[in-house]
């Protein structure tokens, strides 16, 4: 139980911080693509008896960099590349996991998350990812903001755009892995979009947007977990529904303010 709370808080912090850049850079589909495509990597871990988080992380980073490379080369549209890898990774995952006997319960928790099954090793993995991603974002915050605002201007100013973009994709893929731990492959992208989307509704200033995003990400995670305990509903779905509720409240609040 304590582990579940710790995991939810860390994942909330991680996802909401990254969601800020996901929303600003319009990477929502990328997040969904990586989370689904990494099922192949996760399933390989389950089959080989290795912690699926590790194999999942490796496959997520690989997929993100592959999509980034393909789209930056201009040989294929980014959404086309995501669309192909999305389904291929998912199909590979389902095929691999079907080789394991009694795979259905395991597949269910991979698809929809099971934060109560988080182990001590998983928590350490989360701490490591949290440190790596937050360090990257803190060191390069203003540069990441500049490339998010106008990539061409940032390139003209001599910022290392390719390095920053790839760094952002690696951070995104590690964050997707963390999100999968809590809400599963299918719902992972929700935590990478909803907090910042709600934050954006509440403020058109990036500092406040980031602040609201983090508050919303962490509190809706905790609220969702409490709700799932009290009403015995799946934790992943409960957390996503809590975040979505906050988003719709923010949307209504912002529309009401605009009308006045």
């Amino acid at each position, binding site marked *: 139980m304590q582990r579940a709370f710790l995991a939810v808080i860390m994942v909330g912090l991680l996802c909401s911080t990254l969601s800020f850049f996901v929303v*600003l850079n319009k990477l929502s589909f990328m997040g969904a693509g990586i989370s689904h495509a990494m099922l192949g990597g996760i399933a390989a871990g389950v089959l080989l008896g290795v912690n699926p988080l590790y194999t999942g992380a490796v496959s997520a980073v690989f997929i993100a960099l592959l999509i980034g490379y393909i789209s930056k080369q201009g040989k294929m549209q980014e959404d086309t590349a995501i669309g192909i890898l999305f389904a291929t990774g998912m199909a590979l995952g389902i095929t691999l996991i079907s080789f394991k006997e009694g795979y259905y319960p395991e597949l269910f928790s991979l698809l929809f998350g099971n934060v109560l099954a988080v182990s001590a090793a998983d928590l350490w993995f989360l701490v490591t990812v949290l440190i790596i991603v937050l360090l990257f974002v*803190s*060191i*390069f915050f*203003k*540069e990441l*903001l*500049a490339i*998010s*605002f*106008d990539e*061409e*201007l940032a*390139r*003209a*100013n*001599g*910022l290392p755009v390719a390095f920053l973009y790839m760094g952002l994709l690696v951070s995104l893929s590690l964050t997707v892995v963390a999100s999968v731990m809590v809400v599963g492959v299918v719902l992972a992208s929700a935590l990478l979009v909803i907090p910042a989307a709600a934050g*954006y509704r509440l*403020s*058109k*200033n*990036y500092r406040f*947007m980031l602040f609201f995003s983090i508050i919303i990400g962490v509190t809706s995670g905790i609220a969702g977990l409490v709700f799932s305990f009290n009403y015995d509903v799946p934790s992943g779905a409960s957390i996503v529904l809590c975040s979505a509720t906050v988003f719709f409240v923010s949307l209504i609040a912002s529309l009401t303010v605009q009308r006045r």
Partner: protein
Amino acid sequence: MQQVAAALSVDDVSVSYNGMAVLEKISFAAAPGQLTGIIGPNGAGKSTLLKAIMGLVNVDCGSVRILGLAVDKVRPKIAYLPQKNTFDTDFPISVEGVVMTGRYPHLGWCALPGEKDRRIVEECLHKVSMLQLRKRQIGQLSGGEQQRVLLARALAQEAELFFLDEPFAGIDLVSESVIMGILKELRSEGKTIFAVHHDLSKTEGYFDTLILMNKRIIAFGKTKEVFRARYLQETYQGSIAVINGYNELMVVNA
């Protein structure tokens, strides 16, 4: 044109997109302290020339030197204003936040803007008469106001060379006159400015030097020497008519 120390030298630069030539063997050397207009019809490669100079597109061959050095060595000293709306106008950033991004090339990793940077941002916003709107979200401004903010951003960069892509396209007259006033002020401070421009009626009053181009350089030199019907006819290839031979009144069907 004989140059002693060129602010910008472009040597034999060619660019193509998917095998189609966009720029063909462009060469010129520009002296510092000049306000240069880049003139040509649609599709003449004017924007591509700016991007090739800035290293934003791959060149097939040729080289560019700015202040005698490769572009990557002098990036903090060169400011670029792309054609407007290359950014998302819904981006959650204020007017002063946009101008502050112009200070980033001078700040190290992890460094946050300090008092000096904030003062420079304020001064630059004052110069473009946008100080009173500094807290507004960028998308809440008109096209001309956004262009003034982008110019303030370039000023905040404290650059030596300025490259502006159609700075007057689709903006109000007040903004155009504010921007032109600042460009002339920059020139008098010894800065070197290049602006892609399409309105021939104002060309003579705006620029010291002109580059007339249509994939290749048609003419390059002092405005009074190259703003001539014969060069313009060659540049616009038949889509220009000389109505009055004496005053060389021209009509462009661009």
